[in-house]
Protein backbone atom coordinates (compact mmCIF):
# COMPACT_ATOMS: atom_id res chain seq x y z
CA UNK A 1 0.00 0.00 0.00
CA UNK A 2 1.23 3.40 -1.03
CA UNK A 3 0.08 6.37 1.01
CA UNK A 4 0.39 9.96 -0.17
CA UNK A 5 -0.08 11.88 3.06
CA UNK A 6 -0.92 15.58 2.64
CA UNK A 7 1.97 16.10 0.29
CA UNK A 8 3.09 19.59 -0.70
CA UNK A 9 6.06 20.51 -2.87
CA UNK A 10 7.11 24.06 -3.63
CA UNK A 11 9.83 25.06 -6.07
CA UNK A 12 10.83 28.66 -5.39
CA UNK A 13 7.51 30.40 -6.01
CA UNK A 14 5.54 27.69 -7.77
CA UNK A 15 3.53 25.06 -5.96
CA UNK A 16 3.95 21.82 -7.90
CA UNK A 17 2.02 19.61 -5.48
CA UNK A 18 -0.58 21.09 -3.17
CA UNK A 19 -1.72 19.08 -0.13
CA UNK A 20 -2.21 15.91 -2.14
CA UNK A 21 -3.77 13.09 -0.15
CA UNK A 22 -4.72 9.60 -1.36
CA UNK A 23 -3.95 5.89 -1.03
CA UNK A 24 -3.00 3.50 -3.79
CA UNK A 25 -4.30 0.03 -3.02
CA UNK A 26 -2.99 -3.38 -4.01
CA UNK A 27 -4.74 -5.69 -6.46
CA UNK A 28 -5.91 -3.02 -8.89
CA UNK A 29 -4.37 -0.80 -11.54
CA UNK A 30 -4.60 2.78 -10.33
CA UNK A 31 -4.39 5.49 -12.97
CA UNK A 32 -2.86 8.82 -12.01
CA UNK A 33 -4.29 11.39 -14.34
CA UNK A 34 -3.71 15.02 -14.92
CA UNK A 35 -2.84 17.48 -17.66
CA UNK A 36 0.84 18.12 -18.38
CA UNK A 37 2.42 20.13 -15.58
CA UNK A 38 -0.18 19.06 -13.01
CA UNK A 39 2.39 17.56 -10.64
CA UNK A 40 2.26 13.86 -11.57
CA UNK A 41 5.98 13.46 -12.16
CA UNK A 42 6.87 15.51 -9.10
CA UNK A 43 4.67 13.23 -6.99
CA UNK A 44 6.37 10.19 -8.52
CA UNK A 45 9.81 11.65 -7.74
CA UNK A 46 8.83 12.34 -4.14
CA UNK A 47 7.50 8.78 -3.75
CA UNK A 48 10.97 7.54 -4.75
CA UNK A 49 12.77 9.94 -2.44
CA UNK A 50 14.39 11.77 -5.36
CA UNK A 51 12.81 15.09 -4.43
CA UNK A 52 12.17 16.16 -0.86
CA UNK A 53 8.63 17.11 0.12
CA UNK A 54 8.08 20.63 1.44
CA UNK A 55 5.29 19.31 3.67
CA UNK A 56 3.64 15.95 4.23
CA UNK A 57 5.12 12.61 3.34
CA UNK A 58 4.82 9.44 1.32
CA UNK A 59 4.92 6.02 2.93
CA UNK A 60 5.36 2.59 1.41
CA UNK A 61 3.74 0.00 3.68
CA UNK A 62 4.26 2.52 6.45
CA UNK A 63 7.90 3.29 5.70
CA UNK A 64 9.55 6.19 3.94
CA UNK A 65 11.40 5.30 0.72
CA UNK A 66 14.83 6.15 2.15
CA UNK A 67 14.20 3.74 5.03
CA UNK A 68 13.58 0.75 2.77
CA UNK A 69 16.25 -1.89 3.43
CA UNK A 70 16.39 -3.05 -0.16
CA UNK A 71 14.36 -0.59 -2.26
CA UNK A 72 14.15 -2.52 -5.55
CA UNK A 73 12.63 -5.52 -3.77
CA UNK A 74 9.75 -3.37 -2.51
CA UNK A 75 9.19 -0.76 -5.21
CA UNK A 76 9.88 -0.99 -8.94
CA UNK A 77 9.68 2.23 -10.90
CA UNK A 78 9.88 3.44 -14.45
CA UNK A 79 10.20 7.21 -14.32
CA UNK A 80 12.15 8.24 -17.39
CA UNK A 81 13.13 5.56 -19.87
CA UNK A 82 16.14 7.53 -21.02
CA UNK A 83 17.56 7.88 -17.48
CA UNK A 84 20.32 5.37 -18.23
CA UNK A 85 24.00 5.96 -19.00
CA UNK A 86 24.11 5.76 -22.83
CA UNK A 87 27.54 4.13 -22.87
CA UNK A 88 26.54 1.12 -20.79
CA UNK A 89 24.99 -2.06 -22.16
CA UNK A 90 21.50 -3.05 -21.07
CA UNK A 91 22.85 -6.12 -19.32
CA UNK A 92 25.48 -4.19 -17.35
CA UNK A 93 22.92 -1.57 -16.39
CA UNK A 94 20.64 -4.27 -14.96
CA UNK A 95 23.52 -6.18 -13.36
CA UNK A 96 24.66 -3.09 -11.46
CA UNK A 97 21.11 -2.51 -10.23
CA UNK A 98 20.67 -6.17 -9.25
CA UNK A 99 23.95 -6.35 -7.32
CA UNK A 100 23.12 -3.19 -5.34
CA UNK A 101 19.97 -4.86 -3.97
CA UNK A 102 21.30 -8.41 -3.49
CA UNK A 103 19.23 -9.71 -6.40
CA UNK A 104 20.59 -12.82 -8.11
CA UNK A 105 22.14 -11.96 -11.47
CA UNK A 106 20.17 -14.81 -13.08
CA UNK A 107 17.17 -12.54 -12.58
CA UNK A 108 18.72 -10.12 -15.10
CA UNK A 109 18.33 -12.69 -17.89
CA UNK A 110 14.77 -13.39 -16.78
CA UNK A 111 13.63 -9.78 -17.00
CA UNK A 112 15.52 -9.24 -20.28
CA UNK A 113 13.67 -12.20 -21.80
CA UNK A 114 10.33 -11.17 -20.32
CA UNK A 115 10.50 -7.67 -21.79
CA UNK A 116 11.73 -9.02 -25.13
CA UNK A 117 15.05 -7.17 -25.26
CA UNK A 118 17.38 -10.14 -24.63
CA UNK A 119 18.65 -9.95 -28.23
CA UNK A 120 20.01 -6.42 -27.63
CA UNK A 121 21.15 -7.01 -24.04
CA UNK A 122 24.81 -6.50 -24.91
CA UNK A 123 24.26 -3.38 -27.02
CA UNK A 124 24.84 0.09 -25.64
CA UNK A 125 21.68 1.75 -24.35
CA UNK A 126 22.53 4.98 -26.19
CA UNK A 127 21.47 3.35 -29.46
CA UNK A 128 18.10 2.17 -28.18
CA UNK A 129 14.82 3.50 -29.57
CA UNK A 130 12.38 5.00 -27.06
CA UNK A 131 10.33 1.81 -27.19
CA UNK A 132 13.37 -0.35 -26.38
CA UNK A 133 14.35 2.03 -23.58
CA UNK A 134 10.83 1.75 -22.15
CA UNK A 135 11.19 -2.02 -22.14
CA UNK A 136 14.57 -1.74 -20.42
CA UNK A 137 12.99 0.56 -17.83
CA UNK A 138 10.23 -1.99 -17.25
CA UNK A 139 12.86 -4.74 -16.95
CA UNK A 140 14.63 -2.66 -14.28
CA UNK A 141 11.36 -2.09 -12.42
CA UNK A 142 10.69 -5.84 -12.34
CA UNK A 143 14.21 -6.84 -11.21
CA UNK A 144 13.42 -7.08 -7.51
CA UNK A 145 10.00 -8.72 -8.03
CA UNK A 146 8.43 -5.84 -6.04
CA UNK A 147 4.89 -5.64 -4.68
CA UNK A 148 4.54 -1.99 -5.66
CA UNK A 149 5.12 -0.78 -9.21
CA UNK A 150 5.16 2.80 -10.47
CA UNK A 151 5.10 3.78 -14.13
CA UNK A 152 5.32 7.39 -15.28
CA UNK A 153 3.77 7.80 -18.75
CA UNK A 154 4.72 4.24 -19.74
CA UNK A 155 3.00 4.14 -23.15
CA UNK A 156 5.04 7.02 -24.58
CA UNK A 157 7.07 5.73 -27.50
CA UNK A 158 5.49 2.30 -27.60
CA UNK A 159 3.99 0.97 -30.81
CA UNK A 160 0.35 -0.28 -30.78
CA UNK A 161 1.51 -3.85 -30.19
CA UNK A 162 3.65 -2.65 -27.27
CA UNK A 163 0.75 -0.66 -25.82
CA UNK A 164 -1.50 -3.72 -25.89
CA UNK A 165 1.27 -5.77 -24.31
CA UNK A 166 1.77 -3.27 -21.48
CA UNK A 167 -1.98 -3.04 -20.75
CA UNK A 168 -2.22 -6.78 -20.29
CA UNK A 169 0.98 -6.71 -18.31
CA UNK A 170 -0.44 -4.15 -15.83
CA UNK A 171 -3.59 -6.26 -15.45
CA UNK A 172 -1.59 -9.39 -14.73
CA UNK A 173 0.52 -7.55 -12.13
CA UNK A 174 -2.64 -6.33 -10.39
CA UNK A 175 -4.20 -9.82 -10.55
CA UNK A 176 -1.13 -11.11 -8.69
CA UNK A 177 -2.13 -8.74 -5.89
CA UNK A 178 0.47 -6.07 -6.60
CA UNK A 179 -0.01 -2.33 -6.33
CA UNK A 180 0.19 -0.82 -9.81
CA UNK A 181 0.30 2.97 -10.09
CA UNK A 182 0.39 4.37 -13.62
CA UNK A 183 0.49 8.03 -14.53
CA UNK A 184 -0.75 9.40 -17.82
CA UNK A 185 -2.13 12.55 -19.36
CA UNK A 186 -4.13 10.41 -21.80
CA UNK A 187 -7.60 9.73 -20.43
CA UNK A 188 -8.51 7.33 -23.22
CA UNK A 189 -5.49 5.19 -22.37
CA UNK A 190 -6.36 5.08 -18.68
CA UNK A 191 -9.99 4.21 -19.42
CA UNK A 192 -8.70 1.01 -21.00
CA UNK A 193 -5.97 0.25 -18.48
CA UNK A 194 -7.00 1.38 -15.01
CA UNK A 195 -9.60 0.21 -12.50
CA UNK A 196 -9.22 3.09 -10.11
CA UNK A 197 -8.47 6.65 -11.15
CA UNK A 198 -6.97 9.59 -9.32
CA UNK A 199 -7.31 12.90 -11.11
CA UNK A 200 -5.13 15.87 -10.23
CA UNK A 201 -4.82 19.37 -11.61
CA UNK A 202 -2.34 22.07 -10.60
CA UNK A 203 -1.02 19.78 -7.89
CA UNK A 204 -4.41 19.34 -6.20
CA UNK A 205 -6.56 16.24 -5.97
CA UNK A 206 -9.64 16.79 -8.15
CA UNK A 207 -11.40 13.47 -7.74
CA UNK A 208 -10.81 9.78 -7.28
CA UNK A 209 -12.83 6.64 -7.74
CA UNK A 210 -13.46 3.74 -10.06
CA UNK A 211 -13.77 4.35 -13.78
CA UNK A 212 -17.49 3.44 -13.57
CA UNK A 213 -18.13 5.81 -10.67
CA UNK A 214 -16.52 8.67 -12.48
CA UNK A 215 -18.55 8.27 -15.65
CA UNK A 216 -21.76 7.67 -13.66
CA UNK A 217 -21.45 10.93 -11.77
CA UNK A 218 -20.93 12.87 -14.96
CA UNK A 219 -23.97 14.26 -16.70
CA UNK A 220 -25.06 12.03 -19.56
CA UNK A 221 -27.20 12.84 -22.58
CA UNK A 222 -30.12 11.12 -24.24
CA UNK A 223 -30.25 10.57 -27.99
CA UNK A 224 -33.76 10.52 -29.39
CA UNK A 225 -35.14 10.11 -32.92
CA UNK A 226 -38.74 11.06 -33.51
CA UNK A 227 -41.20 11.50 -36.35
CA UNK A 228 -41.71 15.16 -35.55
CA UNK A 229 -38.33 16.38 -34.43
CA UNK A 230 -39.19 20.08 -34.13
CA UNK A 231 -42.30 19.43 -32.05
CA UNK A 232 -40.40 17.13 -29.69
CA UNK A 233 -37.62 19.71 -29.28
CA UNK A 234 -40.17 22.34 -28.31
CA UNK A 235 -41.79 20.03 -25.75
CA UNK A 236 -38.46 19.05 -24.19
CA UNK A 237 -37.21 22.64 -24.02
CA UNK A 238 -40.42 23.52 -22.21
CA UNK A 239 -39.42 20.96 -19.58
CA UNK A 240 -36.07 22.67 -19.08
CA UNK A 241 -33.85 20.42 -21.20
CA UNK A 242 -31.03 21.58 -23.42
CA UNK A 243 -31.63 20.18 -26.89
CA UNK A 244 -29.07 19.96 -29.68
CA UNK A 245 -29.22 18.51 -33.13
CA UNK A 246 -27.27 15.22 -33.03
CA UNK A 247 -27.80 14.31 -36.72
CA UNK A 248 -30.36 14.96 -39.45
CA UNK A 249 -32.98 12.94 -37.62
CA UNK A 250 -31.79 12.72 -34.02
CA UNK A 251 -31.72 15.09 -31.05
CA UNK A 252 -29.23 15.09 -28.24
CA UNK A 253 -30.96 15.96 -24.97
CA UNK A 254 -29.32 16.85 -21.72
CA UNK A 255 -30.96 17.68 -18.42
CA UNK A 256 -33.59 14.94 -18.63
CA UNK A 257 -33.42 11.18 -18.17
CA UNK A 258 -34.49 8.83 -20.97
CA UNK A 259 -37.62 7.98 -18.96
CA UNK A 260 -38.58 11.64 -18.76
CA UNK A 261 -37.96 12.15 -22.48
CA UNK A 262 -40.08 9.10 -23.36
CA UNK A 263 -42.96 10.20 -21.12
CA UNK A 264 -42.88 13.75 -22.48
CA UNK A 265 -43.06 12.42 -26.07
CA UNK A 266 -45.94 10.09 -25.18
CA UNK A 267 -47.90 12.93 -23.55
CA UNK A 268 -47.40 15.08 -26.67
CA UNK A 269 -48.40 12.19 -28.99
CA UNK A 270 -45.08 12.19 -30.78
CA UNK A 271 -43.87 8.83 -32.14
CA UNK A 272 -40.36 7.91 -31.04
CA UNK A 273 -38.11 5.70 -33.20
CA UNK A 274 -35.12 5.59 -30.94
CA UNK A 275 -34.38 6.50 -27.32
CA UNK A 276 -30.82 5.90 -26.11
CA UNK A 277 -29.19 7.13 -22.90
CA UNK A 278 -25.55 8.12 -23.56
CA UNK A 279 -23.03 8.00 -20.75
CA UNK A 280 -20.33 10.60 -20.79
CA UNK A 281 -17.03 9.16 -21.88
CA UNK A 282 -14.20 9.25 -19.40
CA UNK A 283 -12.50 11.65 -21.77
CA UNK A 284 -15.34 14.15 -21.37
CA UNK A 285 -15.39 13.72 -17.61
CA UNK A 286 -11.68 14.39 -17.51
CA UNK A 287 -11.96 17.46 -19.70
CA UNK A 288 -14.73 18.83 -17.48
CA UNK A 289 -12.80 18.11 -14.31
CA UNK A 290 -9.51 19.55 -15.40
CA UNK A 291 -10.71 22.41 -17.58
CA UNK A 292 -9.99 24.82 -14.74
CA UNK A 293 -6.55 23.51 -14.05
CA UNK A 294 -4.89 23.15 -17.44
CA UNK A 295 -1.56 24.90 -17.13
CA UNK A 296 -0.91 25.50 -20.81
CA UNK A 297 -4.27 25.73 -22.51
CA UNK A 298 -4.56 26.48 -26.21
CA UNK A 299 -7.35 28.54 -27.66
CA UNK A 300 -10.24 26.77 -29.35
CA UNK A 301 -9.43 25.69 -32.91
CA UNK A 302 -11.66 28.31 -34.54
CA UNK A 303 -10.04 31.10 -32.61
CA UNK A 304 -6.66 30.81 -34.32
CA UNK A 305 -5.73 34.37 -35.29
CA UNK A 306 -5.34 34.50 -39.05
CA UNK A 307 -3.19 37.09 -40.70
CA UNK A 308 -5.35 39.90 -42.03
Amino acid at each position, binding site marked *: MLTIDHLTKKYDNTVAVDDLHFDVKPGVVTGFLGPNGSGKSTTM*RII*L*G*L*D*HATKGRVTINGKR*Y*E*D*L*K*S*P*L*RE*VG*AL*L*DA*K*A*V*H*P*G*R*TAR*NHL*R*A*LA*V*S*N*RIKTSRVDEVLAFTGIDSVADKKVGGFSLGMSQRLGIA*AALLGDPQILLFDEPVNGLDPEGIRWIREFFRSLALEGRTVFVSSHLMSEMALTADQIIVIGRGKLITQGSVDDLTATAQGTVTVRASNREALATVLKAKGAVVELASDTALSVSGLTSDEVGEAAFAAHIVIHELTPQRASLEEVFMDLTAESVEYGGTTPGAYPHEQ
Partner: protein
Amino acid sequence: MSNDQNLLDVTKSEWIKFRSVRSSVMGVVVFFVLTLGLGGLISWAVRSHWSTTSGIDKLTFDPVSTSLAGTLFAQFAVGVIGVLFITSEYSSGSIRTTLAAVSNRARLVSAKLVVLILSIIVVSELVCFATFLVGQAVFKGVVPTASLGNADVLRSVVFAGVYLTLLTIIGFSLGLIVRHSAACISIFVTILLIVPIIFAFLPTSWQNSYEKYLPSELGRAMMSPFAPTNDLGAWNAILLLVIYAVVIFGVGLTMMIRRDA
Protein backbone atom coordinates in the same frame (compact mmCIF):
# COMPACT_ATOMS: atom_id res chain seq x y z
CA MET B 1 20.72 -14.62 4.33
CA SER B 2 19.42 -11.13 4.82
CA ASN B 3 18.40 -9.17 1.77
CA ASP B 4 19.22 -5.86 3.41
CA GLN B 5 21.44 -3.69 1.30
CA ASN B 6 24.83 -2.75 2.76
CA LEU B 7 27.83 -0.67 1.69
CA LEU B 8 29.58 -3.67 0.13
CA ASP B 9 26.62 -4.41 -2.19
CA VAL B 10 26.54 -0.83 -3.40
CA THR B 11 30.33 -0.78 -3.81
CA LYS B 12 30.16 -3.90 -6.00
CA SER B 13 27.41 -2.26 -8.03
CA GLU B 14 29.43 0.93 -8.48
CA TRP B 15 32.46 -1.12 -9.51
CA ILE B 16 30.39 -2.72 -12.30
CA LYS B 17 29.29 0.77 -13.34
CA PHE B 18 32.83 2.18 -13.22
CA ARG B 19 34.34 -0.44 -15.50
CA SER B 20 31.39 -0.77 -17.87
CA VAL B 21 31.63 2.69 -19.45
CA ARG B 22 34.27 3.82 -21.85
CA SER B 23 34.93 7.23 -20.27
CA SER B 24 36.36 5.80 -17.05
CA VAL B 25 38.27 2.96 -18.74
CA MET B 26 39.73 5.32 -21.36
CA GLY B 27 40.48 7.86 -18.62
CA VAL B 28 42.57 5.29 -16.77
CA VAL B 29 44.39 4.31 -20.00
CA VAL B 30 45.12 7.97 -20.85
CA PHE B 31 46.30 8.52 -17.29
CA PHE B 32 48.66 5.55 -17.52
CA VAL B 33 50.05 6.49 -20.94
CA LEU B 34 50.52 10.17 -20.06
CA THR B 35 52.37 9.49 -16.83
CA LEU B 36 54.63 6.77 -18.15
CA GLY B 37 55.06 8.11 -21.69
CA LEU B 38 55.76 11.72 -20.78
CA GLY B 39 57.93 10.70 -17.81
CA GLY B 40 60.02 8.51 -20.11
CA LEU B 41 60.23 11.17 -22.85
CA ILE B 42 61.23 13.95 -20.48
CA SER B 43 63.84 11.75 -18.82
CA TRP B 44 65.24 10.86 -22.22
CA ALA B 45 65.36 14.55 -23.25
CA VAL B 46 67.28 15.40 -20.06
CA ARG B 47 69.78 12.60 -20.71
CA SER B 48 70.35 13.56 -24.33
CA HIS B 49 71.03 17.23 -23.41
CA TRP B 50 73.00 16.51 -20.24
CA SER B 51 76.36 17.35 -21.85
CA THR B 52 75.14 20.90 -22.67
CA THR B 53 73.35 21.43 -19.34
CA SER B 54 74.73 24.30 -17.23
CA GLY B 55 76.57 23.56 -14.00
CA ILE B 56 73.94 25.17 -11.76
CA ASP B 57 71.17 23.17 -13.41
CA LYS B 58 73.19 20.02 -12.90
CA LEU B 59 73.55 20.87 -9.21
CA THR B 60 69.80 21.40 -8.67
CA PHE B 61 68.80 18.42 -10.84
CA ASP B 62 66.24 16.14 -9.16
CA PRO B 63 66.10 12.68 -10.78
CA VAL B 64 62.97 11.79 -8.79
CA SER B 65 60.71 14.71 -9.77
CA THR B 66 62.00 14.61 -13.34
CA SER B 67 61.07 10.96 -13.78
CA LEU B 68 57.65 11.75 -12.26
CA ALA B 69 57.08 14.79 -14.51
CA GLY B 70 54.32 13.00 -16.44
CA THR B 71 52.10 13.26 -13.36
CA LEU B 72 51.80 17.03 -13.96
CA PHE B 73 49.78 16.20 -17.07
CA ALA B 74 48.19 13.02 -15.76
CA GLN B 75 46.66 14.95 -12.84
CA PHE B 76 44.08 16.36 -15.26
CA ALA B 77 43.16 12.88 -16.42
CA VAL B 78 42.57 11.62 -12.87
CA GLY B 79 40.59 14.77 -12.07
CA VAL B 80 38.34 14.19 -15.06
CA ILE B 81 37.83 10.53 -14.09
CA GLY B 82 36.65 11.66 -10.65
CA VAL B 83 34.42 14.41 -12.04
CA LEU B 84 32.73 12.20 -14.66
CA PHE B 85 32.12 9.36 -12.23
CA ILE B 86 29.38 11.48 -10.67
CA THR B 87 28.49 14.16 -13.26
CA SER B 88 27.77 11.56 -15.98
CA GLU B 89 24.99 10.29 -13.71
CA TYR B 90 23.43 13.73 -13.77
CA SER B 91 23.96 14.43 -17.48
CA SER B 92 22.42 11.09 -18.50
CA GLY B 93 19.69 11.26 -15.84
CA SER B 94 20.76 7.84 -14.55
CA ILE B 95 21.16 9.35 -11.06
CA ARG B 96 17.39 8.89 -10.66
CA THR B 97 17.62 5.18 -11.45
CA THR B 98 20.66 4.90 -9.18
CA LEU B 99 18.96 6.63 -6.24
CA ALA B 100 15.82 4.53 -6.66
CA ALA B 101 18.03 1.47 -6.17
CA VAL B 102 20.16 3.03 -3.42
CA SER B 103 17.95 5.39 -1.48
CA ASN B 104 20.55 6.00 1.23
CA ARG B 105 22.53 8.79 -0.43
CA ALA B 106 25.44 8.75 2.02
CA ARG B 107 25.83 5.04 1.26
CA LEU B 108 25.78 5.68 -2.49
CA VAL B 109 28.37 8.46 -2.34
CA SER B 110 30.57 6.41 0.01
CA ALA B 111 30.44 3.41 -2.33
CA LYS B 112 31.42 5.56 -5.29
CA LEU B 113 34.28 7.06 -3.29
CA VAL B 114 35.56 3.62 -2.28
CA VAL B 115 35.53 2.42 -5.91
CA LEU B 116 37.27 5.58 -7.08
CA ILE B 117 39.96 5.57 -4.37
CA LEU B 118 40.75 1.86 -4.70
CA SER B 119 40.97 1.85 -8.48
CA ILE B 120 42.92 5.10 -8.76
CA ILE B 121 45.38 4.43 -5.94
CA VAL B 122 46.31 1.04 -7.42
CA VAL B 123 46.82 2.47 -10.91
CA SER B 124 48.58 5.59 -9.58
CA GLU B 125 51.10 3.73 -7.45
CA LEU B 126 51.76 1.25 -10.25
CA VAL B 127 52.35 3.94 -12.82
CA CYS B 128 54.40 6.16 -10.47
CA PHE B 129 56.78 3.33 -9.59
CA ALA B 130 56.93 2.33 -13.25
CA THR B 131 57.77 5.84 -14.47
CA PHE B 132 60.33 6.28 -11.69
CA LEU B 133 62.10 3.04 -12.63
CA VAL B 134 61.94 3.82 -16.36
CA GLY B 135 63.37 7.29 -15.68
CA GLN B 136 66.28 5.96 -13.62
CA ALA B 137 66.99 3.32 -16.29
CA VAL B 138 67.11 6.11 -18.90
CA PHE B 139 69.39 8.29 -16.73
CA LYS B 140 71.75 5.43 -15.86
CA GLY B 141 75.39 5.97 -16.79
CA VAL B 142 74.95 9.62 -17.85
CA VAL B 143 72.73 11.50 -15.41
CA PRO B 144 72.74 11.09 -11.58
CA THR B 145 70.08 8.59 -10.51
CA ALA B 146 68.07 8.03 -7.36
CA SER B 147 67.35 4.76 -5.56
CA LEU B 148 64.21 3.53 -3.80
CA GLY B 149 66.56 2.40 -1.02
CA ASN B 150 66.62 6.04 0.07
CA ALA B 151 63.64 6.71 2.37
CA ASP B 152 62.98 10.21 0.97
CA VAL B 153 63.01 8.88 -2.58
CA LEU B 154 60.61 6.07 -1.71
CA ARG B 155 58.33 8.55 0.07
CA SER B 156 58.33 10.86 -2.97
CA VAL B 157 57.23 8.08 -5.33
CA VAL B 158 54.56 6.77 -2.95
CA PHE B 159 53.26 10.31 -2.33
CA ALA B 160 53.08 10.97 -6.07
CA GLY B 161 50.46 8.20 -6.29
CA VAL B 162 48.67 9.56 -3.21
CA TYR B 163 48.66 13.08 -4.72
CA LEU B 164 46.93 11.82 -7.85
CA THR B 165 44.38 9.88 -5.79
CA LEU B 166 43.61 12.96 -3.67
CA LEU B 167 43.08 14.94 -6.88
CA THR B 168 40.57 12.41 -8.16
CA ILE B 169 38.68 12.73 -4.84
CA ILE B 170 38.68 16.52 -5.22
CA GLY B 171 37.37 16.16 -8.80
CA PHE B 172 34.64 13.78 -7.62
CA SER B 173 33.68 16.11 -4.75
CA LEU B 174 33.48 19.11 -7.09
CA GLY B 175 31.22 16.95 -9.25
CA LEU B 176 28.89 16.41 -6.28
CA ILE B 177 28.68 20.17 -5.81
CA VAL B 178 28.51 21.41 -9.40
CA ARG B 179 26.89 18.39 -11.16
CA HIS B 180 27.68 19.64 -14.70
CA SER B 181 30.63 17.89 -16.38
CA ALA B 182 31.99 20.81 -18.38
CA ALA B 183 31.64 23.42 -15.62
CA CYS B 184 33.21 21.07 -13.13
CA ILE B 185 36.20 20.19 -15.34
CA SER B 186 36.73 23.92 -15.95
CA ILE B 187 36.84 24.59 -12.23
CA PHE B 188 39.27 21.73 -11.71
CA VAL B 189 41.62 22.97 -14.47
CA THR B 190 41.35 26.52 -13.14
CA ILE B 191 42.48 25.46 -9.69
CA LEU B 192 45.43 23.42 -10.94
CA LEU B 193 46.54 25.45 -13.95
CA ILE B 194 45.09 28.97 -14.04
CA VAL B 195 45.43 29.99 -10.41
CA PRO B 196 49.22 29.26 -10.37
CA ILE B 197 49.56 31.43 -13.50
CA ILE B 198 47.67 34.25 -11.79
CA PHE B 199 50.02 33.91 -8.84
CA ALA B 200 52.98 34.55 -11.15
CA PHE B 201 51.66 38.12 -11.64
CA LEU B 202 51.13 38.84 -7.95
CA PRO B 203 53.68 40.63 -5.73
CA THR B 204 56.57 38.40 -4.65
CA SER B 205 55.66 38.69 -0.96
CA TRP B 206 52.19 37.25 -1.69
CA GLN B 207 53.73 34.51 -3.77
CA ASN B 208 56.04 33.58 -0.94
CA SER B 209 53.25 33.63 1.65
CA TYR B 210 50.40 31.91 -0.21
CA GLU B 211 51.57 30.09 -3.32
CA LYS B 212 52.78 27.10 -1.32
CA TYR B 213 49.18 26.37 -0.27
CA LEU B 214 48.00 25.78 -3.84
CA PRO B 215 47.18 22.10 -4.57
CA SER B 216 49.71 21.99 -7.43
CA GLU B 217 52.46 23.30 -5.11
CA LEU B 218 51.45 20.80 -2.44
CA GLY B 219 51.85 18.10 -5.07
CA ARG B 220 55.30 19.37 -5.98
CA ALA B 221 56.32 19.28 -2.31
CA MET B 222 54.93 15.75 -1.90
CA MET B 223 56.84 14.44 -4.92
CA SER B 224 60.21 16.03 -4.16
CA PRO B 225 62.79 14.19 -2.04
CA PHE B 226 64.23 17.59 -1.02
CA ALA B 227 62.71 20.16 1.31
CA PRO B 228 63.26 23.63 -0.17
CA THR B 229 63.52 26.44 2.40
CA ASN B 230 60.21 28.04 1.42
CA ASP B 231 58.34 24.79 1.39
CA LEU B 232 55.84 23.24 3.78
CA GLY B 233 57.60 19.89 3.55
CA ALA B 234 56.11 16.69 2.19
CA TRP B 235 54.24 15.61 5.32
CA ASN B 236 52.64 19.00 5.94
CA ALA B 237 51.75 19.15 2.25
CA ILE B 238 49.99 15.77 2.23
CA LEU B 239 48.15 16.66 5.44
CA LEU B 240 46.92 19.94 3.97
CA LEU B 241 45.82 18.32 0.70
CA VAL B 242 43.93 15.65 2.65
CA ILE B 243 42.18 18.43 4.57
CA TYR B 244 41.25 20.16 1.29
CA ALA B 245 39.86 16.89 -0.07
CA VAL B 246 37.90 16.10 3.10
CA VAL B 247 36.38 19.58 3.29
CA ILE B 248 35.33 19.68 -0.38
CA PHE B 249 33.98 16.12 -0.10
CA GLY B 250 32.06 17.04 3.06
CA VAL B 251 30.43 19.99 1.32
CA GLY B 252 29.64 17.82 -1.73
CA LEU B 253 28.11 15.03 0.36
CA THR B 254 25.97 17.45 2.37
CA MET B 255 24.66 19.13 -0.79
CA MET B 256 24.03 15.76 -2.44
CA ILE B 257 21.91 14.62 0.51
CA ARG B 258 19.95 17.84 0.83
CA ARG B 259 19.20 18.68 -2.77
CA ASP B 260 16.53 17.22 -5.03
CA ALA B 261 18.09 14.79 -7.48
